[in-house]
C-alpha cells in the first residue's frame, strides 16, 4: 500500500476528484437515511399502502426479470451466433430502452399497448389490459430492464470458446442440448448478474411505469405521490424501504461477481 506522501501531484489530484465523486454518489443516500426520524419511520412503515406497493414492485420486478430471462437469453444466443451484419442490425435496437428518456419510453409503451393499438387490442381481447394494471407495470419494467440481461448474456456467450460447443455437437448433442448443458452452465454467473441488474433497475424505474400505470402504485410512484401530496417527510419511509431493497440486490450482485 502506497503512503500519501509517495503520491505525485497528478495522483493527488486524481484522489481529490475520486473523493469528491464518492461524496456526491454516497452523500445523498446517507443524508436521506440520517434525516429519517426513527419513531415516525416505525409508525409510518405500518401503513398498508406502503406494503401493498412494495409487494407490487417486488412481484412486477421478478415477473419482468423472469420474462427478460425467457426472451433475452434466446435473443442473446441468436446474436452471438449470427453473422456480423445481422448482429450490427439487431444490437442497436436493444440499446433503445437505455438511450430513451424513461418518460418517452412510457409514452411509446402507452401508444403500443393501449386498447386502441393493434397489439394492445389483441391482448385486450385475451383479457389482458396494460393501462393502469400490474401487466402495464411488468411491461414497463421489462422494456427498460431487458437490455441488461441481453447485454450481459451476450458478452458471456461470446466469451465461450466456440470449439467447446462444437465438441459437444460432434459428441451427439443437438443445438438445444448443447445450449442447455454447455452454454448456460458456462455463462451462469453472467446471466445471474444480468438478472440481478435487471431486477434492480426494474424496481427503481419511475418515469416509464408512471406513464403506463399510475395505479396500482409501485414504490417509486408512491414516493412521488406522497412527495407532491404530503411533503418530503411522508415520502421518506417508502424511499428508505426501496433503498434497503436496492442494497439487497446490490449485495447479491457483489456476491455473484466475487464468486466468479
Amino acid at each position, binding site marked *: 500500500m502506497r503512503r500519501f506522501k509517495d503520491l505525485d501531484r497528478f495522483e493527488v489530484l486524481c484522489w481529490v476528484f475520486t473523493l469528491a465523486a464518492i461524496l456526491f454518489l454516497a452523500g445523498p443516500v446517507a443524508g436521506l437515511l440520517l434525516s429519517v426520524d426513527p419513531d415516525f419511520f416505525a409508525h409510518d412503515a405500518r401503513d398498508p399502502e406502503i406494503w401493498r406497493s412494495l409487494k407490487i414492485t417486488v412481484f412486477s420486478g421478478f415477473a419482468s426479470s423472469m420474462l427478460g430471462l425467457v426472451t433475452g437469453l434466446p435473443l442473446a444466443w441468436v446474436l452471438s451466433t449470427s453473422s456480423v451484419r445481422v448482429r450490427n442490425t439487431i444490437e442497436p435496437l436493444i440499446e433503445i430502452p437505455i438511450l430513451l428518456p424513461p418518460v418517452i419510453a412510457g409514452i411509446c409503451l402507452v401508444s403500443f399497448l393501449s386498447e386502441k393499438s393493434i397489439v394492445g387490442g389483441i391482448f385486450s381481447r385475451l383479457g389482458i389490459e396494460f393501462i393502469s394494471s400490474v401487466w402495464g407495470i411488468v411491461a414497463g419494467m421489462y422494456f427498460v430492464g431487458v437490455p441488461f440481461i441481453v447485454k450481459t448474456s451476450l458478452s458471456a456467450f461470446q466469451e465461450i470458446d466456440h470449439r467447446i460447443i*462444437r*465438441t*459437444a*455437437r*460432434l*459428441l451427439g448433442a*443437438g443445438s438445444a442440448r448443447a445450449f442447455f448443458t454447455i452454454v448456460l*452452465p458456462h455463462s451462469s454467473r453472467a446471466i445471474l448478474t444480468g438478472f440481478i441488474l435487471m431486477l434492480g433497475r426494474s424496481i427503481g424505474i419511475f418515469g416509464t411505469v408512471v406513464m403506463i400505470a399510475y395505479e396500482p402504485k409501485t414504490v417509486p410512484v408512491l414516493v412521488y405521490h406522497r412527495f407532491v401530496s404530503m411533503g418530503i417527510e411522508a415520502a421518506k419511509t417508502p424511499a428508505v424501504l426501496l433503498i434497503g431493497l436496492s442494497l439487497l440486490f446490490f449485495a447479491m450482485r457483489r456476491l455473484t461477481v466475487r464468486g466468479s
Partner: protein
Amino acid sequence: MLRVRNMSVLVDSFRLEVDGLEIDPGCYFILMGPSGAGKSLFCECLSGFRPAGGGVIVLYGKNIGRLRPEERGVSLVHQEPCLFRNYDVFGNVAYGLRCRGISEKAIERSVGGILEKLGISALRGRKVDELSGGERQRVALARAVVVKPSLLILDEPLNALDFKTRQDMMEQLRRLKGEFDHVTMHVCHDLDEALRLGDRIGIISRGRLLQTGSPREISYRPRSLMAAELLGVSNLFPVSKAVGDIVVLEDRFNLRYAGETVKNPAYCCIHPELIDLGGTRRAEAAYEARIIGIRELGKMLEITLDAGIRLTVRIFDTRTRQFSEGERVVFGIPEHAVHLME
C-alpha cells in the same frame, strides 16, 4: 473408409479444393500444411460446421455431406482440450454416451474402460480445472474415442504440450491406433510427429491437397517444390538443365545421375543423410568439396560443404571419422539420394 470428392469451398477470397482423397479403414492419416493452408477449414467441412461446397464426403459407405454435426459419427480433439467445466472428468467422458441415450450401467463400463486404457482412471472424479495440460488432453481424447466415432479428427492435439508429455501422448496415440478401426485424421505441422504416427501423410497448401503417400514416400519423394519446402527438405536446388546423365544444378554443379528418368526436371533435392561423406558407403559418383561448417545436433553431425553449391550432409555415426572446418573432402552422391521434381 473416408472418401472426399469434388469439395470446393470458398471463404472470402480463399478457396479450398479437395478431390479424390481416399483413406482406408483404420488408417492413421496425417494432414500436414503451413498456417493458412486450409487444414482447419477442411476439418470444419468434414465435421459439418461448414457446407462442403457441393462435394461428396463418404464415411464408411454413408454420404455425410449433408448431415448435421451430431449425426456424422465424427469426433474432434482440438489443440486446446475444450473440456466442459461444468462436468468432472467422468461427466466429460460420459457426455457423448449420454447424448446417445445409453444406459448408465453401460456408460460406467465404457468410460471406466477408456479411462483405464489411457491411464487416467485416478482422475475420474476430479474437476477439469484441477488437471494438468497433458491430463486434460488425455481426457479430451478419451471423450472423443469412447463414442466409437467413424472419423476421429485430431486438430494439432500435441501443440500445447511440453516435450515429455508430448512423447507420452504420442505413445498413447500409437497404442490406440491399433485398437480402433476408425479413420484418424491428425492435423499437424511437425514432420517428426507425422513420421512417427502416420500410416499415410497428406500435404496441403494454399487450399489444395498436393500429395498423399506413405511417410517414406512423402519424405523421400516430395512431388512439388511446395511440398518439399513444407517438409523442410535440405539441399533443394533449381535444375538449370539436364543433358544425358548430367543434371546441372544452379548453373555450376554437374550432378551425375543415372536414375529414373524425369521429364523436364525443375528442382532437385539431395537427401543429406544419404550423401556418402567419409567413404563408408560406395558412391556412384565422387565429388570434391571443402567443409565450411560443422554443427553438432545431439547424436548427429550436420556438415555444410562448399562444392560449388552449398550442400548439407548429416552423419549419424560420428565415431568413424573426425572432420574439421576448412578440410577438403571427397564425397559421393548415391543414386537413391537424388530426387528430381518436375
